[in-house]
């Protein structure tokens, strides 16, 4: 179910705290795409190519990571940039969240 997959993911800010505030804001957030039983593997790969401009190899690699690991980080950057990516993923019907970088 939706909520159980999200549970268990916690951010660890220790690493991020070593960075200066400015660079933290630049790279401290990430976009995560989660596996779901509805979206086709070919479609997820298409979305990554189409939205992020990834090569087929990179898109397939991340798509497989989503499928086998349950989720994958598909982008890193500022919070506002990641919010836009998440919104774009939702427009495609993918299940995505953003979070602060951590382990």
């Amino acid at each position, binding site marked *: *179910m*939706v909520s159980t997959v*999200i549970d268990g*993911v916690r951010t660890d800010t220790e690493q991020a705290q070593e960075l200066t505030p400015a660079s933290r804001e630049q790279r401290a957030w990430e976009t995560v795409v989660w596996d779901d*039983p*509805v*979206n*086709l593997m*070919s*479609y997820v790969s*298409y979305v990554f*190519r*189409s939205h992020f401009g990834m*090569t*087929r190899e990179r898109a397939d690699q991340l798509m497989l990571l989503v499928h086998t690991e349950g989720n994958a980080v598909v982008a890193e950057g500022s919070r506002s940039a990641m*919010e836009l990516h*998440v*919104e774009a993923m*939702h*427009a*495609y*019907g993918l*299940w*995505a*969240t*953003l*979070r602060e970088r951590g382990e």
Partner: protein
Amino acid sequence: MRILAGYAGRLTLELHPDEAALIDSLVGQVLELLQSHSSTELDPDPLLASLEVGGSSTPPEDPALARLFPDAYEDAVEASEYRRFTEQGLLNRKLQDATVVSAALSAEAPDRASREPLREDPDGTIDGQRIMADEDALPVKVTITEASLEAWVRTLTAVRLALAARLGLDSDEDHERLEDDPEARSTVLVYDWLAAIIESVLQFESAVVEDSDPEAL
């Protein structure tokens, strides 16, 4: 259903009239579902509509809508804040996509009175009832262009997400179980059939991409 390649990245989706009617009906249901959740009229300007600020602060109660508008943050407070600002714009974009598909299907839907040929009865007289055997039905040909392909695959995906939510399909095991459930079986077949259409359209799309830009890959 079959897909025919055309020029300049176009493809033609050839559907039996019943198949076209089924997709049209499902897309119509998604449009209604989206409109039921919308707080404003859709701005005719696509850019303004997609940038519209607004939305509710809690996830939709309807499971299909909840799946179409998932939380962006694990934290409930942040998710709620984000939703208040982005949900209406996202909803408008989904409405626009579904409208593209719906309009394409309506434009090509057979006008039965004019397109169905009169048939001869075995004794040579014309059958004025215009009743056709299914296999004689003229296919509905819908053109998908490079510009509309995204709207098509997004909308067919939205229909599948809504069907999955209605079926309670949350895992691969659910799919196997529902296939054997006599009440759910026909819906599961439609759900799988839509997957096959998306798959075919995307296969075509990647062939076009690879043809047109061999250097990039």
